[in-house]
């Protein structure tokens, strides 16, 4: 049974933020969802201080072995989340991680305090793939911004703080080090890769905002490379994700240094993908095959 930042989990497979709406899924599939919940912990969609409607369509575009999304973080805002969604998410049979995003340290602080004081919440994931309105810099692209943010947030809660890294940087390990030095408890990676597609028929971008985030098996080797680099640079527990569709994929991430793995886009193809990946991962490896992280970075 994996222990992650003091939270006991049934198996090492969780969901990537924004790829599973457990409340909608329960409406569609009923209580069977709770009886056979696919993940050992549930990570919420990112919440922001104020409600957001999300981006105008078109929001998604299929790509080779993956997809682009430009959803725009639709959510009910902190108050709406706490009042309407949190009570329903508390009914899930697994620990709850709430993902938050602010555009300043003050906004992040409000979110961490508001979510952190709720005992139903087991951990907080910081989505730092957003600009800081004060500096104009994307927090998660800057080791110093990330460290400074964590230094503000760390004293505000005893709950584990997980920093979700963006892959759209030259050196994700440096950002992970910033998170560690600022007091983060764990790091999760990767978020989606900035990408565009053009409809060859119309000449227009595939998603209305022009570019979006690429996910799915197409990004998996990028994620594995970044995970290896981050694992070599920090001592923090790691959540690895990026195109995991099968147990064999999860094993790659664990070998690269992940303590937990997250399933994202594959949930869209298979609502029970989390359980399937966990079952496939649990099948014993043939004798002689290493299961411990193998880190041989030059």
């Amino acid at each position, binding site marked *: 049974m994996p222990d992650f930042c003091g939270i006991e989990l049934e198996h090492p497979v969780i969901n990537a933020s924004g790829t599973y709406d457990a409340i909608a899924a329960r409406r569609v599939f009923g209580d069977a969802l709770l009886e056979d919940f696919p993940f050992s912990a549930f990570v919420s969609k990112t919440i922001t201080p104020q409600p957001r409607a999300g981006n105008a*369509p078109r*929001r998604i575009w299929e790509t080779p072995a993956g997809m682009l999304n430009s959803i725009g973080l639709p959510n009910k805002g902190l108050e709406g989340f706490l009042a309407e969604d949190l009570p329903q998410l508390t009914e899930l049979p697994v620990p709850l991680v709430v993902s938050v995003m602010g555009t300043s340290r003050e906004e992040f602080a409000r979110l961490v305090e508001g979510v952190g004081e709720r005992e139903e919440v087991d951990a907080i994931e910081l989505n730092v793939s957003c600009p800081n309105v004060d500096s104009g810099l994307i927090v998660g692209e800057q080791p110093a911004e990330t460290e400074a943010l964590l230094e503000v947030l760390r004293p505000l809660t005893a709950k584990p703080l997980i920093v979700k890294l963006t892959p759209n940087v030259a050196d994700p390990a440096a950002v992970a080090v910033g998170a560690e030095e600022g007091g983060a408890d764990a790091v999760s990676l990767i978020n989606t890769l900035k990408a565009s597609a053009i409809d060859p028929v119309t000449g227009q971008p595939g998603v209305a905002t022009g570019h979006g985030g690429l996910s799915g098996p197409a990004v998996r080797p990028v994620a594995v490379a970044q995970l290896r680099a981050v694992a070599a640079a920090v001592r923090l527990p790691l959540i690895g994700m990026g195109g995991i569709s099968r147990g064999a994929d999860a094993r790659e991430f664990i070998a690269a240094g992940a303590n937990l793995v997250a399933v994202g886009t594959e949930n869209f193809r298979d609502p029970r993908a989390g359980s399937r990946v966990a079952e496939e991962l649990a099948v014993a490896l043939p004798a002689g095959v290493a299961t411990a992280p193998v880190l041989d970075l030059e």
Partner: protein
Amino acid sequence: MTAPFGRRLCEVGENRASGGYRVFSLLDREGPEPLPGQFYMLAAADRWAGSGERPFLPRAISVAETGPAAEGNRLDFLVEGVGPGTDRLCALGAGEGVWVTGPLGNGFSEPRELQPGAAGAILVGGGIGIAPLALLRRRFAERNVPTRVLLGFRDRAHSGGLDDLFTCCEVRLASEDGHAGHRGYVTDLLAALLEGDAVASAAVYACGPPAMLETVRALCAERRVACGLAMESPMACGYGACFGCAVPRSDGGFMRLCVDGPVVQGEQIAEVTHA
């Protein structure tokens, strides 16, 4: 009614040409009988990532007809090959496996209590959008709901499904090339019908291309006739997870077509736009 949790492997019964389209059937041993207007997420179990590593995501396809099978239900789908996903579905062979999630979405709402002499239900279909109206028409016939069916097609090549799905009822046709029925749009037929008396007691049920649905919505709004529009939007998951299928609501914000639709009441949206 909820869908079985997760995707399940179903077997292809038959797959036959129907005009320029294909009608294929799946044997569903687990799922409940679908409501008219509901849809399924479908992906071939083999060779789903074909040329160019697409298709990748399952495709949302409305159920056209259903009936009891030896075990479970037979589900019929009308498909037109317009891309890597629908091309693969069109090529399914008998006995092949298909990953199925569903039935999903709300389906068409029940008709209101119909007064004697009321105008009843008016079904308006365009092109491939005639599919969900086949099951709806049969359900209404079983309950003696007076129903008129108006179907429109671009040309003969795009009138697939008509002979397979609407054999046993009277339909009024429109075609843009004039090969069958009224030369023009199916919405011309609807406009003429809505000129009559007692239309306020009618209910319109429509599925078709965005321009057709927008004309239906505007006509019904003008005549204050209730209308349910079965819409389409790019959809990765079908169960509320991806937030891709957002449609603007008339009161601001967006709805997810997979869980709040795919049937939308005319007043819920400001207009039907092309996604």
